[in-house]
């Protein structure tokens, strides 16, 4: 047989990626940073954009929101994944369905749906008011809280599925051995199950963090006026300020941060394979 030619099967996908992602990106960056800007001005441009207060605030907001979203999906997703990994039958199938279905619904639709739930006269405030627990309606919408809820809702499946894959690979005989050797269920979870699920916690968190960093729709729709993320800043530079060079610089920064996280993610996933998980 001749050389392995199976890579040819990837050509359509690579073509699509080149045409729709790499090409435009390269063109955008080249044009804004090398054609429209004099080469000598590029370093100064980077310094200007990076030291701008709006950029620093947006970067902090983005990071803060992303970390909160990651923690929220972890706290909500871990028990769900645990349930799925340890149960079979129609109940587990139903939970999988509930986790996956929102995934197939438009993010915009889901985000607007949240305004019905979180608004001043939304479902939650109506219930709280009717029960007499709060006097005035709570501000649940158009703030960081709303952004985190909305993004966590959208990103939850990634966390659950990543955790599920790791948990499903935990050898049940280890748990049986642990119990036989005298460990209470709680001790067993603390010393055996949780440590063995940590690779999933790390990969799930990284993937949610990576996706959260570039989020645009949810913060734009249900965030407050002051809650500006880097992605929103880029959009404003392009759409409103028509300042493409700044948009390009911010894009490079965001892309770099994402790629660094992705490199960590790839490394962690490799390690997991080496551990035989």
């Amino acid at each position: 047989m001749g050389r392995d030619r199976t890579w040819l099967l990837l050509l359509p996908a690579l073509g699509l990626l080149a045409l729709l992602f790499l090409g435009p990106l390269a063109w955008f960056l080249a044009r804004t940073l090398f054609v429209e800007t004099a080469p000598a001005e590029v370093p100064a441009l980077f310094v200007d954009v990076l030291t701008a207060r709006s950029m620093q605030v947006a970067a902090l907001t983005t990071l803060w929101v992303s970390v909160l979203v990651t923690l929220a999906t972890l706290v909500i997703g871990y028990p769900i994944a645990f349930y799925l990994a340890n149960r079979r039958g129609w109940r587990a199938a139903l939970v999988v369905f509930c986790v996956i279905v929102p995934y197939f619904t438009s993010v915009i639709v889901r985000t607007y749906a949240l305004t019905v739930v979180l608004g001043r006269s939304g479902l939650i405030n109506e219930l709280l008011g009717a029960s007499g627990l709060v006097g005035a309606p709570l501000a649940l919408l158009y703030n960081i809280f709303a952004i985190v809820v909305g993004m966590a809702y959208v990103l939850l499946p990634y966390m659950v599925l990543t955790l599920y894959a790791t948990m499903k690979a935990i050898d049940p005989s280890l748990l049986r051995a642990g119990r036989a050797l005298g460990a209470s269920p709680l001790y067993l979870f603390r010393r055996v199950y949780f440590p063995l699920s940590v690779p999933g916690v790390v990969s799930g968190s990284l993937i949610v963090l990576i996706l959260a960093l570039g989020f645009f729709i949810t913060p734009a729709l249900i965030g407050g006026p002051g809650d500006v993320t880097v992605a929103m800043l880029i959009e404003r530079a392009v759409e409103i300020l028509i300042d493409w060079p700044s948009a390009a610089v911010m894009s490079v920064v965001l892309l770099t941060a994402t790629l660094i996280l992705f490199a960590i993610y790839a490394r962690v996933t490799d390690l997991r394979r080496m551990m035989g998980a």
Partner: protein
Amino acid sequence: MIGRGATVPGAVGLARPHERAAASISAPAGKALELQGLTKIYGSETVVDRFDTRIQAGEFFSLLGPSGSGKTTTLMMVAGFAAIDAGRLLVDGVDLAAVPPERRGFGMVFQNYAIFPHMDMFENVAFPLRARGMPKALVRERVAAALDLVQLGHLSDRYARQLSGGQQQRVAIARAIVFQPPVVLMDEPLGALDKNLRYDLQVEIKEIQRRLGMTVLYVTHDQEEAMNLSDRVAIMSRGRVEQIGAPRDVYERPANAFTARFLGEANLLPGAVVTSCPGRVAFQLRDGTVLHADDPSTRTAGTEGELFVRPEKLTLHPLADPPRDGVNRLSGTVRRASFLGSVVRYAVETGSGALVTADAPNVAAHHHPELGERVALAWSPADTVILPPDAA
């Protein structure tokens, strides 16, 4: 043991590591384990049917049977991972049916080792001690002793992926005995290892069990392993206990055709009892040949059954030079010869057309017939048992 300082001062430096280990582990002898009508039912199927036995303190007891015979389910009921549907499980007279596995206090070894991959060997062995909240200094001492006992003290900082299967299983054994459990359960612990290593570990397990006086309940489908290790063996088939006894007894005096076949090659010749007086049964094969069996029980003349004799009990002789009187004899034609190394196994077609298997030790002094040669087979009534007709 009197507190922590019970190891004899001075003796430590002289003793070999595993001897020192045994001295400092010095398990309180194992406890008796009583299974009273232990039963497991899945749906309409009775997976374990009224298992009854009393395993003595310090006894090595094996459950032997083909897959699906209920041996592992029995072990799981004892361990607490399968609910007991009927019957009682007593340790030194205390009923454990309602006690969860982690509070039964049994040591357990699994076929796939079940070594915690994220802990080194020290932490693995320390696990049952830490789960019981034992003070650190004592943990260190006990773990070191247990690892020495399986001769792996030098590997305490390794992880499972750095060890061979045999080493992992020895660590698993150390982990199962480090907390001095009254009973150790072993679920086909050597099933995943290759043949030579399996034998070495059998010797090691037996040695440790004897030295510590542990009560062991051992599951295996390997009859040689069960016979080599056990004080008593329970042979199981389709949920039922076919026979319980010392290895030699169940091998030489099986209770039925299943046990006879499961423990090794067996000749089973159908026929009926002719006469029976205490100690000696005369049995007539279908072709009219009358053979004798030493049998303590009296049997009614005319009872159908099977005559059982192991192939190695038979001797082969040239037809011209038949054996002396007073033994069972058959003659026939050699149809097959299989060279098995230490023995040559012959299939001899007798008058009735039945094939009788005879093993001849691979020594020059022994008669080794050619294919097609007419031979005489002889064996003692003492090696012969009359079995009830095969129900299966």
